[in-house]
């Protein structure tokens, strides 16, 4: 079976329905500025080490890392996977186990050496020997790579993976074989030599990064010659910098109440990029009375998901559903919206045996214990603390008492996800939570499968035999994109009838850019404004 990948990619990209990208709250001023710039100052919110694929720390670092290191494929403003370093007609064979790619002309590393298929082979295999990073997982899934010639490589996977273009080809940064081949530990290599449009000219720990444009980049020289990135950890300082014009942009986002303030300034434009990180209330399914599905179902009626989201984010968010995944993805099951209905919640609780109340109006569980619980939340995450506060008030109306306990991040993790290993159990009642991205099709199995090998993110301790069966049989047997969608939709139905957690939704990320200093900013779904498209010259 030979199949052109493009159509598949389009199916696989989970972002067709809405052209919601770059829904700029304020238009008009975007064309006043210049389309090229000598240098821009862009704040980076964290110190991300030397920005090599093995040393950056968080998603903030990944943003800048992507400017320095190229990937074979990439995601565009519509969050579709598109070719970047390779020719359009790359091929997929053998039920998604063999991927053949051909490099475009003119690519080289920042040290001047040419980029060849050997480097691709090295990039996809070397991380398997390394201690750090998500890249290890990709490398582990590879059986072998055959180098056909200088430009062409054939990647063979151990197992069929329909999602490999996104999770593998678009994620694996290409590194220089010359630089790393004699290095047993990649994390001590501090010089970043990529093949991207910018090279890291200078890095001062805790102070700043300085990026310089690669003038002979194979897709053309970037429009901005120098990008200076001071490390600024305080959000207010960044906002002040943006307002005063000291900063042209920042890796971090702003909150909704600032829209008006920024709207007053003609030089500034705000971009709203759809986000893919869900905010979730984890429920410890293993602990009584949360182990009772009726109790959990009652909670879904008792909490005003939509109200809370619009309180926090106004219209700049996608409201979550019982289906958990973003409703605009093409495999999202529709009609599973949350329904805020206090009387229904009370009714369900009464029916489930929570009908007695203590003197102060708190419901008692069937075995007579009062319904008071603790909600853990990161002390550093305001939105989640506020959500927890609002939930506490709403649950009061159905006779459930909740105490919010804000703690330092790793402390909460140690309770909710000890050693990041779900098989080690958990020690909490409720916890405000979130995940980096919900975009991979194995998101649902990872969150809800009771098999710790598959359900690596099942921090709620969710157990549902029907769901497990779907994962073990139907999901494994998937051969086509259509199959996949069908299975995923079935899964959503199961978890909506037996909810294991509550998904509040996906906040947009609002980013401010100075369009007077530079007007080439491109924003998109799940795409930070600091991206290759923003700086790429006209093509």
């Amino acid at each position: 079976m030979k199949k052109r990948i493009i159509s598949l990619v389009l199916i696989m990209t989970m972002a067709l329905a809405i052209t919601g990208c770059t829904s700029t709250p304020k238009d008009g001023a975007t064309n006043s500025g210049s389309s090229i710039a000598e240098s821009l100052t862009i704040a980076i919110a964290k110190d991300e080490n030397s920005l090599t694929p093995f040393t950056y720390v968080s998603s903030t670092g990944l943003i800048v890392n992507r400017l320095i290191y190229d990937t074979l494929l990439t995601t565009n403003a519509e969050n579709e996977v598109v070719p970047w370093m390779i020719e359009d007609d790359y091929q997929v064979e053998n039920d998604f186990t063999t991927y053949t790619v051909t490099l475009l002309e003119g690519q080289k590393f920042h040290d001047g050496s040419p980029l060849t298929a050997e480097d691709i082979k090295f990039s996809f295999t070397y991380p398997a020997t390394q201690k750090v990073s998500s890249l290890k997982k990709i490398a582990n899934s590879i059986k072998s790579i055959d180098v056909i010639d200088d430009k062409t490589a054939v990647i063979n996977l151990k197992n069929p993976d329909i999602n490999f273009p996104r999770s593998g080809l678009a994620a694996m940064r290409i590194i220089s074989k010359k630089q790393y081949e004699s290095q047993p530990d990649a994390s001590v290599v501090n010089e970043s030599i990529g093949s991207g449009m910018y090279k890291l000219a200078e890095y001062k720990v805790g102070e700043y990064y300085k990026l310089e444009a690669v003038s002979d980049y194979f897709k053309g020289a970037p429009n901005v010659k120098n990008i200076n990135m001071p490390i600024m950890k305080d959000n207010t300082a960044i906002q002040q910098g943006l307002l005063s014009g000291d900063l042209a942009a920042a890796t971090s986002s702003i909150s909704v109440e600032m829209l008006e303030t920024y709207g007053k300034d003609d030089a500034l434009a705000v971009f709203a990029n759809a986000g893919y990180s869900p905010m979730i209330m984890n429920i410890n399914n293993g602990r009584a009375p949360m182990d009772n599905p009726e109790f959990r179902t009652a909670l879904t009626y008792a909490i005003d998901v939509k109200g809370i989201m619009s309180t926090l984010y106004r219209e700049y968010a996608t409201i979550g559903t019982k289906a958990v995944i973003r409703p605009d993805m093409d495999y999202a099951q529709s009609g599973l919206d949350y329904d805020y209905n206090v009387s229904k919640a009370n009714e369900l609780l009464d029916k489930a045996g929570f009908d007695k109340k203590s003197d102060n109006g708190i419901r008692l569980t069937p075995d007579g214990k009062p319904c008071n619980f603790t909600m853990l939340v990161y002390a550093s995450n305001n939105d989640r603390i506020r959500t927890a506060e609002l939930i506490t008030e709403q649950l009061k109306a159905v006779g459930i008492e909740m105490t919010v306990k804000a703690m330092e991040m790793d402390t909460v993790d140690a309770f909710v996800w000890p050693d990041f290993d779900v098989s080690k159990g958990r020690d909490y009642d409720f916890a405000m939570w979130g995940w980096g991205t919900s975009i991979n099709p194995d998101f649902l199995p990872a969150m809800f499968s009771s098999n710790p090998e598959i359900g690596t993110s099942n921090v709620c301790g969710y157990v549902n035999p029907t769901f497990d069966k779907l994962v073990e049989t139907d999901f494994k047997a998937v051969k086509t994109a259509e199959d996949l969608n069908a299975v995923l939709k079935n899964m959503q139905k199961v978890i909506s009838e037996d909810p294991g957690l509550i998904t509040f939704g996906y906040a947009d990320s609002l980013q401010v850019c100075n369009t007077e200093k530079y007007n080439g900013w491109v924003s998109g779904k799940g795409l930070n404004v600091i991206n290759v498209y923003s700086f790429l010259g006209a093509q």
Partner: protein
Amino acid sequence: MRSKIIGSIGVTILVLLVLIAVFAESLAPYSPYEQVGTTFARPSAEHWLGTNDIGQDIFSELIYGTRNSLAVGLLSATIAMTIAVLVGVMSGWFGGKLDRILMKVTTVFLTIPFLPVVIILAAFSKGSVWSMSIILGVMSWPVVARILRSETIKIKGSNYIHMIQGMGASDFYVIRYHVFRELLPLIFYRGIIRVKSGILAESSMSFLGLGNPAAKSWGSIIYYAQSSNALLTGSWIWWIIPPGLCICLVSMALMMVAYSFEERNDARMEDKL
């Protein structure tokens, strides 16, 4: 006379604040936890100080916040000062082995880093206002203890103490009626600083991502205002200034009391000179 007026102003403010804390339920127009309006509303007849980022009434938050803030400030200061006075005075007075042991403990406490210890203690506590106060109190006594120790040694060395000791005054008597009395102004000043630091520390902890911003307090109001960019949106006038003033009010009232206390204590001698 003037000192008396200043003192009574201070006492009045404190009493008023305590009353507000005690009767918060009946004084506050709304529950501070409930969503009672739109978000970020400006001050109006319904909401005297507007509403916050999730539509809670700021004025009600302020009134309820008095409770936690006063509790944290007073409790942490009391804990810190009690330990400091006990350790400082005992160490300075009795000297010898006891002094050496106590001073080692003090110095170790002084050198132990604040940040991780707070995280460790917070993880094992309930995250309530009480545990926060205890943590802050336990972490902040050593400096005061050392100051009190050296003052105690000085007092112990003074001649008149020797005289009455020679005439048979017990250690307890001398500590209780002389050492303590002489240290009192210093303890008072230090205590005031601790009350203020306690209230402030609570908000700073939130700023560092360590506190419990879910508890209503003046500190947490300021913290949320700050994280909602009150400074840039202009809402700081009704969102940050009032709780800020409340914190200032407490420390200034305490200072006024201390001032008049000190004045009255030796007013007579001043008159004669």
